[in-house]
C-alpha cells in the first residue's frame, strides 16, 4: 500500500470508528431529539468514511471494495486515531470526545480543501459543511454542560481530563504525513494544532472549563496501527457477520 492509499484509509478509519461508536448510542440518549441528532452526526461520519474507502479502493485497483476495507482488515491494519475508540461511558464523555475531534476535523478539512489531490479537496469541501454543523452542536454542549449545573460541569471536566491523553495523536505526523506534505497532498498538523488549541481554549473559557495541563502520555498511536484495548471489541462486533459467513454477500 502506498502513502496516498494509507493516508486516505487513515482519514476514513477515524470517521468510520467514530461513526460506529455514535451508532451504538442509538436509543440511549438523554432525550429523543438528542438521540436522533447523535445518529445524524454518526451518519455523516460513516458517509464521509465510505467516500474515502471508495476512493482508496479505486486507488488500489485490485478488486478490493469499500466494504472490504471497512470490514475485513486486521486490527493493526486500521489507522484511526485512538480518541474515537473510547467507549460511550456517559454523555459527558461522548460530547467531550466529539468536541475535541470536531475542532480537529474542522481545521483539518479546512486545510485539506487546498490539497493537490483533487478527490481529497472535493471531499473536504463537501464534508466541511457537515463538520461545521457538528462543531457548532458540540460547542453548544460544552457551554450547556460546562456552565449548566455543578454536576454537569464536574462530569464534563472529568471526561475532558481523561480523554486529553488521546489528543496528542491528532497532531502526530509519521512518515506518511511527511512524505505527502512535501507533495502538497497532506495537511500540516502542526498548524492545525495551533488552531485547535486556540479554539478549544476559547470555548473552554466561555464554558468555565479548564484546559488540562498534562504531560504527554507514553502511547503507540493508532496512525501506526496500534490501538487501545477497546478496538478489538468494536471490530469483533462490526466484523461478526463477515467473519462468520466469509462467502456471503450482504
Amino acid at each position: 500500500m502506498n502513502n496516498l492509499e494509507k493516508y486516505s484509509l487513515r482519514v476514513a478509519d477515524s470517521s468510520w470508528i467514530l461513526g460506529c461508536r455514535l451508532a451504538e448510542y442509538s436509543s440511549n440518549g438523554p432525550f429523543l431529539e438528542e438521540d436522533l441528532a447523535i445518529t445524524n452526526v454518526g451518519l455523516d461520519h460513516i458517509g464521509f468514511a465510505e467516500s474515502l474507502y471508495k476512493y482508496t479502493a479505486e486507488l488500489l485497483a485490485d478488486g478490493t471494495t469499500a466494504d472490504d476495507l471497512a470490514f475485513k482488515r486486521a486490527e493493526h491494519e486500521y489507522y484511526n486515531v485512538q480518541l474515537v475508540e473510547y467507549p460511550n461511558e456517559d454523555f459527558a464523555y461522548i460530547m467531550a470526545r466529539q468536541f475535541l475531534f470536531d475542532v480537529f476535523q474542522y481545521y483539518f478539512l479546512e486545510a485539506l480543501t487546498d490539497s493537490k489531490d483533487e478527490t481529497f479537496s472535493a471531499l473536504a469541501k463537501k464534508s466541511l459543511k457537515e463538520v461545521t454543523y457538528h462543531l457548532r452542536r458540540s460547542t453548544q454542549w460544552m457551554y450547556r454542560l460546562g456552565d449548566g449545573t455543578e454536576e454537569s460541569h464536574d462530569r464534563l471536566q472529568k471526561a475532558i481530563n481523561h480523554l486529553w491523553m488521546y489528543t496528542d495523536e491528532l497532531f502526530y505526523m509519521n512518515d506518511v504525513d511527511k512524505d505527502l506534505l512535501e507533495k502538497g497532498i497532506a495537511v500540516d498538523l502542526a498548524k492545525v494544532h495551533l488552531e485547535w488549541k486556540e479554539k478549544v481554549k476559547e470555548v473552554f473559557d466561555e464554558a468555565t472549563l479548564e484546559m488540562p495541563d498534562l504531560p504527554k502520555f507514553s502511547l503507540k498511536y493508532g496512525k501506526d496501527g496500534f490501538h487501545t484495548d477497546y478496538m478489538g471489541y468494536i471490530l469483533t462486533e462490526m466484523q461478526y457477520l463477515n467473519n462468520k459467513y466469509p462467502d456471503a454477500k450482504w
Partner: protein
Amino acid sequence: MEDQKKMEEFQAKIDARIKIEPKDWMPEKYRQNLIRQISQHAHSEVIGMQPEGNWLTRAPSLRAKKILMAKIQDEGGHGLYLYCAAETLGVSRDQFIQWLHEGKAKYASVFNYPSLTWADMGAIGWLVDGAAIVNQVSLQRTSYGPYSRAMIRICKEESFHQRQGYEIMAHLANGTPEQRAMAQDALNRWWWSSLMMFGPHDSDSAHSKDSMKWGIKLETNDDLRQQFIDKTIPQAELIGLKVPDDNVELLPNGSYKTSDIDWEEFWNVIKGYGPCNTKRLKHHKKAHDEGAWVREAAAAYAEKKAVEAVG
C-alpha cells in the same frame, strides 16, 4: 342539555368527515381514547428503536449500516411527531414517559420479541412495518386533525422501510444456504407476532366500538389483519419463502384463510410476560434516568442565558 347539543354537533362533524382540532369541543371519552391511542403509538415507535438497534454494531456492510441507522432515526422522528400530536390533548411528554415507565401506558407488543439474526432486520421492516402501514394508511383518515396529519407524514417513510426490509429478505433468500435459512427462520419467528399487531378479534376489543363511532378507527382489527395477510403471503412466495402455517388456503375471492392466532400468547405478552418486556422498559428507563443530569444542565444553562438577556 348543553352537553347533549354539543355531542350531537360533534357527532355530526365526525359523520361529515370534518376533522376535530385541538381547540374544538370534544367528549372527555374521545379525548381519553385519543390520549391512550396516540401515546401508545408514540411509545411503540420509540421502543421499536431497540430490537433494530440490537444489530447496529453488527450491520454487515456500509450501506446496511447507514440504512439501519437512518431507519431507526426515522422511527424516533415518528415518535416525536406523535408525542407532539398527543401533547395537543393537554398532556406533557414527561407525563407520557412517566406513564410508560409505570406500566400504565402500553406500546406495540411485537417489540417484546428478540431480534436474533441479521435477517430479523429484514423481517421487522417487511412484516412489522408492513403491518404498521396497513393500520396507518387507514389512520390517515382518522377524525382527530393532528393525529391524521402525523399519520400522513409517517406513512411516506414507512413504505420506504417496508421496501428496504423486503429487499433484505429477498437478498438473503437468494443468497447462500445459510442466508436462506436465516431468512426463513426470521419469517417463522415474526409472522405470528406481526399478525398479532392488529389486536384482538373485534368482538374482544375493549376500545373498538367507541373508536369506530368517533372515527378514530375506520376499519376493524380483523379487516386490517386480512388485508395484511392477503398482501404478504404472495410476497413471501415470490422470494421462495413460506409462512409458518400449514393451513393456508387461497379462497376463490383471492383472500387467504389462515390458522387462528395463539391468543394465549397474545394476552400473555400484553400482560408483560413476553421475552423482552422487562428488558425494553428497563432500557428505556435507564437511558431516561441517566440523561436526567443532562436535561437539568441544559435547562439550567438556558435559564442563565434568559436571565442574562433580560438583565
